[in-house]
C-alpha cells in the first residue's frame, strides 16, 4: 500500500514537499513507516526522532497498524502559543 504522509514546518522544508508517498507492506505499523521515511529521506532523520506520527488527526503509538485510507502526518515538536 502507499501511504501519503503530510509534512509541516522544518519537516516540509527538509524535503521540499508538503507530502511524501511512502510504499509499505499491508499491515505495516507506524514504526515501519518511521523506518521507511528515515531510509528514504535521511535528512529528516534527526527531526523525525523527535516527532510524533498522527493518524487520522490523533497521536499514534509506534505499534499502530496503518490502513491505506488513513490520513497520516509527521508532527514535529509543536511550538504554538
Amino acid at each position, binding site marked *: 500500500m502507499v501511504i501519503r504522509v*503530510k509534512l*509541516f*514546518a*522544518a519537516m516540509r*522544508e527538509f524535503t521540499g514537499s508538503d507530502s511524501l508517498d511512502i510504499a509499505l507492506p499491508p499491515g505495516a505499523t507506524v514504526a515501519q513507516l518511521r523506518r521507511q521515511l528515515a531510509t528514504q529521506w535521511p535528512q529528516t532523520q534527526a*527531526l523525525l526522532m*523527535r*516527532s*510524533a506520527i*498522527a493518524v487520522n*488527526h*490523533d*497521536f499514534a*503509538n*509506534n505499534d499502530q497498524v496503518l490502513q491505506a485510507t488513513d*490520513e497520516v*502526518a509527521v*508532527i*514535529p*515538536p*509543536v*511550538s*504554538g*502559543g
Partner: protein
Amino acid sequence: MFRLIREPIDYFTLTEAVRSPRCGAVVLFLGTVRELTGQQVTVFLDYEAYAPMAEKKLAEIEAEVRRRWPIGDMALVHRLGRLAVGEVSVAVAVSCPHRHEAFAAGQFAIDTLKELVPIWKKEIAPDGHGEWVHQSVSTCAPRSPAEEQR
C-alpha cells in the same frame, strides 16, 4: 468556542462573549510575540498549523476543560500567518462562578494547547533568516507530545 484565524485576534469581543451573570470570574490569557527568545532577536513569527488536527485537538481541550471545571463559557483562538512583535498569537478566555476555577481552567487550557495542538512557529530574525522552533526555549514549557510517546 475554538478557532484558527488569520486576522488579528479581537480579544475584547471574545472576553465579552464568555461573560455570564452566573459567573463571577473571567480569566483571559494572551500570548504575544516577544522581541527576544533566549538570545535571539525576533522581528516576525510565521505560524503554521495542521489545521484539521489542530481543530480536533482544540475541540478536545475545550471538552476536557468543560468536564473538569464549571465553565460558563470559553474561547480558544490561535492566529496563523505572519505576526509582528507585540501581536497576539493566542487568546484563551474562560468564565467560572469562582476565581480559582477560572484561573485553573485558563492555565490548563493554554498549557494543553501548547503541548498538543499541531501549530509551529518560525522565528524571522532582523537579517531575514528564519528558523522553525521545534525545541521550546521556555524554561516553563512542558514536554512535547513526541517526547511523551517515546
